[in-house]
């Protein structure tokens, strides 16, 4: 085990898989010599050469369209979108093509690939370097969506993702790229897609979170404990298809739930989770499920910390839910 931050853990996973599988190629803006604007691909250009770590022209649609072709041909492309805010020029290739390729060809053309992209706020990025667009992909059938919160999960989920046979959006919570540190197993190490993790067992309120907000949820749970409320905190890890059993199991136990995410509230993932809980654990609910999320505004610059669903906003939600 080595102590790593999330950037290092992802870098480690990429290096490992590129060594193991020569079909893996990285492509994107600035992923080559400079190693990505967050330095996630640092060193890989030197190690694997410019045919496997490829700087591209400035076009996300071109990157994903090319990656689809590569995948069809049998490579395992891992395109990077520099910020998830800039994924929209590629949205048509992703939702109209990538997501539907296997289906529309009756399985002749599966299109496995992992689209890596930094997500979320916390770096004072304003409107366009802070967004969390996961719901815009979850709603689209055919895509899987992953978002690790810890370095070890980042490595393990990325390796699983590259080996998976479906297209995957791999969202990297950039607020904790360097802040999240931890032990990361060396060598080959996978975390299965589709499994959430109970990171803090508890009895009274279920708190569902993922990515950078997991730490806020944990912090809030600790603070709630100070008020005598015992929270169970779930790290979703895979956002879609989500680990319904873990979520429902917990809610059946606690009867109370708070769902946290940075993305805007309306039609966000929290609304799906609340609805699934209604459908599968209605009679267990002892309080209305609560959402603590980004607001339905563009992501702001100066007031970023007021926008984000940080611990100070999660605590009252937990308390209110517990006391309902």
């Amino acid at each position, binding site marked *: 085990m080595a102590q790593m931050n999330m950037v290092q853990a992802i870098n480690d996973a990429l290096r490992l898989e590129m060594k193991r599988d020569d079909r893996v*190629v990285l492509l994107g803006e600035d992923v080559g010599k400079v190693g990505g604007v967050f330095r996630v691909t640092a060193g890989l250009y030197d190690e694997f050469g410019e*045919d*496997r770590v490829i700087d*591209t*022209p400035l*076009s996300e*649609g*071109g990157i994903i*369209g*090319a*990656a*689809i*072709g*590569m*995948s*069809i*041909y*049998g*490579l395992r492309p891992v395109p990077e979108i520099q910020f998830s805010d800039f994924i929209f*020029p590629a949205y*048509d*290739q992703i939702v*109209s*093509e990538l997501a*539907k*390729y*296997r*289906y*529309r*060809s*009756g*399985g*002749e*053309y*599966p299109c496995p690939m992992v689209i890596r992209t930094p997500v979320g706020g916390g770096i004072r990025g304003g409107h366009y370097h802070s967004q969390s667009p996961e719901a815009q992909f979850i709603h689209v*059938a*055919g895509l*899987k969506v992953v978002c690790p919160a810890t370095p070890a999960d980042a490595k393990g989920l990325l390796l699983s993702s590259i080996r*998976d*046979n*479906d297209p995957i959006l791999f969202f990297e919570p950039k607020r904790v790229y360097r802040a999240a540190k931890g032990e990361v197993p060396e060598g080959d190490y996978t975390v299965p897609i*589709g499994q959430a993790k109970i990171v803090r067992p508890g009895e009274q309120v279920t708190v569902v979170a993922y990515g950078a907000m997991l730490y806020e949820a944990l912090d809030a749970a600790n603070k709630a404990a100070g008020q005598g409320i015992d929270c169970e905190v779930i790290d979703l890890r895979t956002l879609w*298809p989500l680990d*319904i059993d873990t979520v429902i199991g917990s809610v059946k136990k606690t009867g109370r739930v708070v769902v946290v995410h940075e993305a805007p509230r309306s039609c966000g993932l929290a609304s799906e989770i609340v609805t699934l809980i209604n459908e599968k654990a209605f009679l267990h609910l002892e309080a209305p499920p609560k959402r603590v999320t980004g607001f339905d505004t563009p992501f702001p610059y100066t007031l970023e910390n007021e926008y984000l669903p940080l611990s100070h906003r999660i605590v009252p939600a937990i308390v209110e839910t517990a006391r309902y």
Partner: protein
Amino acid sequence: MTTDVHATAATARSTSQRKPEDVLADDVVRVLSPDGTLIGEDPGLTDEEVVLLYRAMLRTRLVDERAVLLQRQGRIGFHIGSLGEEATVLGTAFALRESDWMFPCYREFGGALFRGMPLQRYFDNLFGNANDVAKGRQMPDHWSYRDKRLGSVSSPIGTQMTQAMGVAWAAKLRGDPLVAIVYFGDGATSSNEFHNALNFAGVYRTANVFVCRNNGWAISVPTERQTASDTFAQKGVAYGVPGVRCDGNDVFAVVRATRAAVARAAAGEGPTLIEALTYRLSGHSTSDDPSRYRPEAEVDPWQALDPLRRLRLFLQDRIGWSDADQARIEAEVQEELKRVIDVAEKTSAPPLTSLFDDVYADLPWHLREQQEELALGPRAPKGH
């Protein structure tokens, strides 16, 4: 509002920019004149090859006509064909090597059949039946056939261009000496994808042949509204990609231009953009009524430039192709059509559960639940 600035455009608008005389321009590759005589360097095909090509073009047209008929009879829901554009579709397909990939737009079923896609498979798609490889999930004329390296047809305009570039790029990274040809219309040159595909192809010198079927129209929008560039071929200049024009109703010209582009790509010299000057004789699809936006008078001169007629005249001259020869092939194709349509039509609809297959490699819990929900629930009323 001022309108004066548009005055000339408004006048020009009633006809397409694709005029028959365009092919007479100096830079247009031409081999076979409309009356079937050679006027340029022929691509050196044997008589057998020419007959093969002619037969494929004829088969394409007969299949096309039958599909339109089936649609009119309400037996299939839709068809989009290649009437008048057969020389472009078949000439390019002919010039391709078996190891090459072909990424269709939506009018290239003729090329796919030529490369070996079974006619039955095509009609299973048109009928959207249980034997359709895609389980009737897509509209008619949206097929795929990986065995013969034929891509998957989708509706969004242009997306296949960027993907075909990615395939050629991957092949190059792998050291595989193959070429990916990709088809698109004049309208598609306005899409994001044209820009991305050509730009990346130029930068990475991918082995692509980009075939623009300039058929004069994008549904009701004439080519002059698509772009202010004089030709589509010259768009290559923006990407360091050579552009070539050929008479798209002249199958020999198409073969020559395509062969040169394939050879260039295979030699590692990079992509070529081919603009094939042809004309969409029919409506855009069976859903379209072209009389609303183009006068029959515009279409008339194009009838005389019909690519099949032209090649038949050539064959008459060259090998004494007779009416009996013609009739024999037609009969063969009709026979074949009867057989496959019969089977396709009798085949049942895809099973309910197939609705949920192939969304992912494995069925996740939520789709398993939805599959069950559908299976246990009441059946939908038939038809519309």
